[in-house]
Every structure is written in C-alpha cells, then in structure tokens.
C-alpha cells in the first residue's frame, strides 16, 4: 500500500539562512569509526561548493545512544563536552538525521536544569542542520549528473522524517540527477528496525523489521540503496550481506551507500571509498 508522503510531523517548516562562508562539520561517532567515507564525501561536497569546512578535532558523540537508552546523566556528560566546539556563529552540519535530531531537539531537554549550558545548547541547536537538508536548501546543490543511467532506491531515516522534517530532501536531491531513476519501495515510511540498542536488546523484532525492509528495497529492482543515515545504512547493508553470505552469493544483492557518497560520485567528484 502507499503511505502518504506528507508527514504530519511537528517541525515541517524551517527558515534557511543564506549560504555561509564556513560551516562546522559534526561527523558523528558512528561515521567516524564505521563509515568515514560518508563523512569525508560530505565534506568534499561542501568544499567543492566553496564552503570552508571546520572539523573540530575534539568532537566525539552527541550523547544520543545513552539518552535514548534511558541514561540521561551519561548523555549529558558527553554532550556537555561538545558544547564549546562551535564558538563561531557558523552552521553545524551533521551527516545523520538522528544525531542532528539529538542536537536540535533533545540537547535542550538534557540541559533544562543548567541555564548556562541550556542557552549554549539551544543556540547550537538553532544552527544545526542535517547534511542533505543543508546541501539542498542552504547550498542549493545543483550539479550535472555525469554517471551512467541507473535506478536506485532511497531509505529515509525515521529521525530525518519525523524529527528533522527532512523526509523529502533525499528525493529532491536525487531528482536533480538526470540519469538517476528513483524506485520507491513498499512501506517506505516504515522503520528499518535499527533503533540503536533496540537491535541488540530485541534481535527478534529488529531482524524481522530489517528483513522486511531489505526485501522491499530489493523488490524495486534498484541497483543500490542510498540513505542519509549511517545507522540505517549499516543495518540494511549488513543484513543484506548476511543474506548473501547465507545464500552463497558473491555479488552483493543490495549494495548501499550514503547519499553524500552517491551524489559526489555522480557529479564528477572523487569519492573517498575505503570500504
């Protein structure tokens, strides 16, 4: 069945600033350790547009894993260590809807009892953008597609969809690529089943959800899946890889990459791809 695309989310509209000279890039702990090429390609895309990218070296994690697991004190400690990393009034760009959502909406909750940090967190939240949203609405990304004709499918994370209100951004970016056809999958707005510690705590349900998601994505016949969230990306592609392994397939039946990597590759950029 088709689920309406339009989300009745709480934050559907946002005013965007003009293109800045410089941005802070907040890579996220997951990208830093597991999918660094996604972060690097996002940085390259921004720099190619003439934007200076500042990567604060003391960045670690937004605190979301602890926060959503019910450990707000631990989340607060970690988030507090990040508050001084963005002293200039530049936008903070995050290649993940869930980490972006944490900074944008939940930092103010965990610092509610600490006026100084609350003010600092709130100010950062207001200039924090999800990468794809920033690329589309602030940078105005519009580069000619240089790739061969291809069909891809798109998974939008629940946090992009329902926290950041950026559920249409991925579609709009892909629509700018002339040789790329986007194939929609069934139950598109449904969660892939990752949910952070949920995937460890409730493997039965998580497996059922990601198996259904992989099947729906594969059923489109697309050559790959792209997504702007690395949590979902790892969940989906590692599940597909396990299915390939179990079936003795050598060629990946559902390759996937971060939207940043895909956009960079298609528009003549040199993707950093190490994995």
């Amino acid at each position: 069945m088709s689920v309406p695309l339009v989300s009745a989310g709480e934050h559907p509209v946002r005013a965007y600033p003009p293109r800045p000279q410089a941005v802070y890039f907040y890579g996220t702990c997951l990208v830093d350790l597991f999918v660094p090429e996604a972060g690097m390609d996002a940085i390259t895309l921004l720099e190619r547009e003439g934007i200076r990218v500042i990567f604060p070296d003391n960045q670690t994690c937004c605190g979301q894993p602890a926060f959503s697991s019910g450990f707000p004190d631990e989340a607060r400690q970690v988030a507090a260590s990040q508050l001084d990393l963005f002293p200039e009034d530049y936008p903070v760009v995050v290649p993940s809807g869930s980490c972006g959502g944490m900074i944008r909406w939940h930092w103010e909750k965990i610092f509610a009892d600490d006026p100084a940090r609350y003010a600092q967190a709130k100010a950062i939240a207001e200039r924090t953008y999800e990468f794809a949203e920033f690329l589309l609405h602030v940078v105005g990304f519009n580069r000619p597609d240089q790739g061969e004709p291809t069909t891809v499918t798109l998974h939008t994370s629940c946090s992009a969809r329902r926290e950041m209100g950026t559920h249409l951004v991925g579609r709009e970016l892909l629509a700018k690529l002339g040789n790329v056809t986007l194939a929609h999958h069934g139950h598109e707005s449904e969660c892939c089943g990752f949910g952070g510690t949920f995937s460890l705590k409730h493997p039965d349900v998580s497996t059922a959800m990601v198996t259904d998601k992989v099947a729906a994505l594969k059923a489109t016949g697309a050559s790959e899946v792209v997504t702007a969230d690395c949590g979902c990306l790892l969940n989906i592609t590692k599940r597909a890889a396990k299915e390939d392994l179990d079936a003795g397939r050598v060629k990946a039946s559902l390759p996937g990459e971060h939207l940043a990597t895909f956009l960079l590759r298609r528009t003549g950029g040199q993707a950093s791809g190490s994995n």
Partner: protein
Amino acid sequence: MNAPTPHTAHATRGKPIAFVSAEALRERVHEAINDDHLRSSFRGAMDFLMAKRAAQFPDESELVSLRSLSEAIRQYSLSKLPDLLEQLEANLTRNGVHVHWAETPDEANAIMLDIARRHQAKLIVKGKSMVSEEIEFNHAMEAAGIGALESDMGEYIVQLAGEKPSHIIMPAIHKTKEQIARLFAEKVPGVDYTDNVDALIQIGRQVLREKFEQAEIGLSGVNFAVAETGTLCLVENEGNGRMCTTVPKVHIAITGIEKVVEKLEHVAPLYSILTRSATGQAVSTYFNLISGPRKADEKDGPQEVHLVLLDNGRSQAYADEQLRKTLQCIRCGACMNHCPVYTRIGGHAYGTTYPGPIGKIVSPHMMGLEQTHLLPTLSTLCGACGEVCPVKIPIPELLVRLRGEAQSAPHPHPAMVGQGAGYRPLVSFVWRLWARIYAQPGAYRAFTWLASRFRALTPSRQSGWTVARTPLKPAPKRLRDMVRERV
C-alpha cells in the same frame, strides 16, 4: 479525587493484575515473530487501517489544526481534572446516576459485585470496555457465580475462545474467518460450520439478542464523560452498546478517571478525530449520550444507572507533569495500527491489557515497573505512533523517560511504582564507562584509534547484531584521520 464510598469500604487492596512477567515478554515476542500466519494477518489488517485513516485526512492542514485542538482540549481537561471529577459527580448525582470511586481493580469489581448482588443478577451483558478488561471484570464476576457476556462481536469471539483482546478497537483482529467459523461450530450450540461472514454475524446476533432480554445488568465503557452536563458518551458501531445501556434494568458504566471533559462542545472535535483515527470512519454508526436512568414518565431505559470511576495508577501518572500526558489518550488505537513492532508481534505478545505504543506508556503506571520494565525498550523510537496520535501524546519521549525510570538505580522517592526494576549494575557501569571515554576527547581518540588499528581483532559475534547481520568492523582510517590527510 478518591472519595471513599460505602461500597469501597470493604474492598481489599489487591496488587495490580499481572498478565505477563517482564522476562516472559521475550518468549512471547519470539513466538509471535515466528508465527507467519500472525505476521501476515496483522500486516494486512494494519495496512488496511492505515489506508482508511489516511483517506479520512485528505487535507493535512485540517488534520494539523484538529490535532492541536484535540490536544488542547485533553490538556485543558486534565489541568482541571480534580475539579471536573467533582463537577461530574455532582451533575451525574443530580441526574440520578450513582457515582462510585475505585482506587484499584479489586475495589472496582467489589463495587460492581455489590450492585449485582443487590439485584440478584445472574447475567451481566457487556458492551465493549477496555477498563473492564483492565480489571478482569469477567473473571471477578464468574468467580462469584455471575455470568458476564461480551456483546461486542469481536469481544464475543475473544471470550468464546478464552482469549484476551489483541487490539483495543478490534479485539479479534488476530483471528481469521475460518478460525471464527470453527470456534462458533464448536462452542455455540446447534451451529454448523460456516465461514460466511454475514452468516457468522447473524449467529452472534441471535445468541446475543436473547441475552439482552435475560440480563439483569448491562455494562458499558465510556468514551467521554461531560462534567458540566453529567453526560456519558459512548461511541460504537454495532448497536450492542445501546442495547446494553437501555434494555437491562440496571446499567453500570465504568471508566478511568481521565476520560472527563468539561463541556459538551469539547466532545465534538474529540469524537471526530477518534473515529477517523481509529477505524477511518467519518462518524461511528452509534453515538450514545447517557444522562441518567429512565424518568417517571418515560417508557424505556434502565431504572438504575451507576458510574464507576477507576484510578488504578492514573493518579500516580497525573502527579508527574510529563507522565500526565499519557492520560490524554482517547483510546483510538492509531498508534498500534502504525507501529512496526505491533504489526509484527500482534497484541497478545505484550501481555498487557493495552498493547502497542500506548500500552507501553500506560501499563507501567497501572501494573508497576516490576512487570513492565522491558516494555518501553520494545521500540525503535521511530516516532510513527507520536506522528499519528490524535491528541499528540509524545509517545517516543515518554518511552525514553520510562526507560530511564526503569533502568536507573532505585530512588528513595520514586515517581512511579517499581522504579529501578530494570536496574542492572553491569549495564549501568558500561554506560558510565562509555560516558567517561566519550566525554573526554583525548580518551575517545585513543579508544577509536585502538579500535581502528586493531580492527582485525573485532569480535565476529556481536550480541543481537550478528543474529541477522554481518559484523560491524571499524574502518581502517577514522574520519578524523581522513580529514587530517586531506589536501
């Protein structure tokens, strides 16, 4: 709010009724997830209900404003709850309705048993009421030798099968017509097997029609109780609710204390968003407004009407500003229809009266966290429930709060019963250690450098992750290394 009445004086203070222990949850979930039949029937039913709801809201801006209005009405009502309950009691009493207060399920059952005994009742015929499920009313009556018969078709099927509802609006949604056909042939005297749905409904209606006449008491739930007028509103589709509340000489309504609104005009938007969110209907087939027993010059209606107002943990939730939001619920079931977890495990696996997302946030204050501490973890926090909730209950936010209540070290003055029941010293230690590393950039860099450098030593078995996925492995170069090396 908990004014004692003569009826509650002898009631015993029972423990909250337990359905499934926290540990048994995993087993139930495991069973459900491997039941292909259950999986496909819930998927189909939930897809149908999602499409029906979506068709009711073609204009998104109307939905946005109606949700905001509905949320505001519920929050307004709750902000004045103690006053509204007193006003409701006064106006119902003036209308000739007997109002009873029950703090626990045992008290509620004792009150109703008392009424039944005074009328020497042998049979109580019931309209659909989730609160009666919450207090296990049928068992309490049967234990006292009084029959309690469900007259809502779905509830009737579930009762015949000796089961519990698997959905708050569609109690028998887990059953196929073939299963129902076999059940009727087996359990209803003189019925041959037929899987013709119309024929099955006719069989049910015939059985129930007789019972409406025999029953001394009719029991119903309440969707909205209007304080200013002393009116009980009942939403239904089958007409059985109207029968239960008008045919027997005594009508007992039971509801949670949160269902009160101030004015009749507050009901209209809530009613509209309820039926559209629940079953995708513009209006329900029946909408009953009950404001008292039959008057002297009236020819029909019950001679006696009672309202039982149940607390069962609700005032505990009420006392906390954030948890109070759970009481905004109007029981439409849209959150379960849209929940990817509920869709895959169905309602029974939760082991609570109220399944799905709303069940995860109301069961802890009804049953205590000892038995429910795992429920809030059974969610990816995808937000689909919060997105469709007609009264904008921030369900994901409340799940996070309850995870915290369940897992943090036991507090001397807890906000809810069973706080800390999910506390595991080792898990808490791991998170403290994690925070120590991740809150110190130097320690974090050292940790990730080691993880990347010695990536070959990454374990190939990674708890729940590798059940269905290839292992996660740190990249040979971290993002910070790549950034440093860029030209």
